């Protein structure tokens, strides 16, 4: 099943895309988000820096695990994310990630495409990553991430994680001790203002 997503993309020409490098914590947070809601689709924003030769993702803001179709809370989240970037002085909104409800679904979907296009409008090299849920054990050579363009088509852009080996083993430990249950996304934050959707101390 896992090969299905890749095979489907192999037909026809794939665009090159800009290389994406993720910091360990950013990659871990994305996966913990997906693992916290295994039966739902989840999405979130990628923050970091972007240049013509590559995107570096240092932070991740998990957004929703409920319907992606509703725009008001998404608008609020995007504005707050923008403001967070502005006040940090060095962060930019550099991409979007999504994990679908069905494990063999590698389609970005209409809502994912809209969000991706919006982010691409502000940042031309924005990374769009889809978590490939058909097998959930990532390895350093296969991070279970598909890189897409804003139309949802796969690109050949290399995606890497800094210090992948160590990051993956720490991720395994986190999952074993249930860290993912403590992750807060914007959805959860909206239900309780005390919950920190920046997850500043989750991975410490």
């Amino acid at each position: 099943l896992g090969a299905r997503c890749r095979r489907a993309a192999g037909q026809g020409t794939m665009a090159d895309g800009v290389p994406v490098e993720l910091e360990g914590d950013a990659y871990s947070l994305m996966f913990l988000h997906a693992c916290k809601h295994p039966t739902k689709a989840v999405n979130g924003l990628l923050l970091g820096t972007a240049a013509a030769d590559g995107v570096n993702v240092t932070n991740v803001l998990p957004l929703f695990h409920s319907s992606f179709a509703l725009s008001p809370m998404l608008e609020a989240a995007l504005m707050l994310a923008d403001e967070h970037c502005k006040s940090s002085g060095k962060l930019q909104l550099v991409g979007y990630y999504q994990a679908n409800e069905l494990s063999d679904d590698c389609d970005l979907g209409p809502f994912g495409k809209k969000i991706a296009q919006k982010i691409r409008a502000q940042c031309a090299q924005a990374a769009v990553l889809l978590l490939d849920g058909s097998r959930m054990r990532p390895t350093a050579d296969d991070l279970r991430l598909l890189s897409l363009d804003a139309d949802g088509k796969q690109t050949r852009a290399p995606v890497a994680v800094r210090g992948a080996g160590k990051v993956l083993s720490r991720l395994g430990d986190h999952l074993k001790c249930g860290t993912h249950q403590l992750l807060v996304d914007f959805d959860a934050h909206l239900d309780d203002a005390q919950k920190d959707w920046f997850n500043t101390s989750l991975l410490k």
Partner: protein
Amino acid sequence: MSVTPSLDEAERACAAYGHEPSRCGFDLSRDLVMAVREGKHVRPDLVLKYGQYLLKSHASRLGDGVWAMYEQVYMALLQYGRRRKKSDGANDLSDELRLAGEYCTILAARFPDSIRVRRLEAMMWEAKDEFELAMADYESILKEDPNNLFAVKRQVALLRSQGKTAEAAKKLVAHLEVVNSDTDGWLQLCNLYLQQQQYRRAAFCMEELILINPMAYIYHLRYGEILLSIGGVEKGGNADLVRTARKYFAHSLDLKPANNLRALYGVLICCAAAPKGAKSKNEVEELGRWAQKRLLEEYGAAKASTMLEAVKAVSDELLA
């Protein structure tokens, strides 16, 4: 019967014993599993850990509650367990599925001819990816008991898990025509419509829900969100929809004034989207400023200083 603690309380109590069921003992473990059951939380990981301990070590102490426990742990095994043994014989069942099979046999022996047990057997087919067999089992249950809620819902869930969203919606509609007070059904249908971008139909579902329970703040809130999504703030906006959405967000705040962040953000966005130079401009501005003040109060009370600054900046921008 004592009152079951909330899931948070029960988890904290178990944390004191290192989350180890045998150290937590019967009472704390049972409290935790009951908290998941009664709160309708989805935590198969917890149910498996503590429920299995209870069934192995304290089955007799559970008394008549043991059957419900078997059922709950059975479902958790199907939800959370592995499908196959690692040694990958295609027909090798994983430990979890084998154990689930044992529990099902125990239940079937105690309750022969039970539709409830037949539903559980059908769920086993689902766990083994035998979708046709599962569908057939549910059909036969429905022949005997045409309004069996569980069977209908499993069929809808089956269709969803195969990606057949439109068919799932059709089935749910047929069910709701007979049982139109099924709030969970309406909520699921709403989500299915949203997935297919059928916003008007989704809105209709919320209207039905509001009729069923007009005091539920969450229905008014969701309705406002759907209207605003249709009204498309970016597409130049449909002023009527935005104004109606605003009313529903405001009503949601009437029903739940505290800790209702979504409605406050909703009001803020609607005020920002109201056409400038409208007759009710002062009213809109007043409402917007009020929503901003309430938001800052909520974040202040929550001592969330980073959010406080960000929200102030964002709301100032929106209301400018």
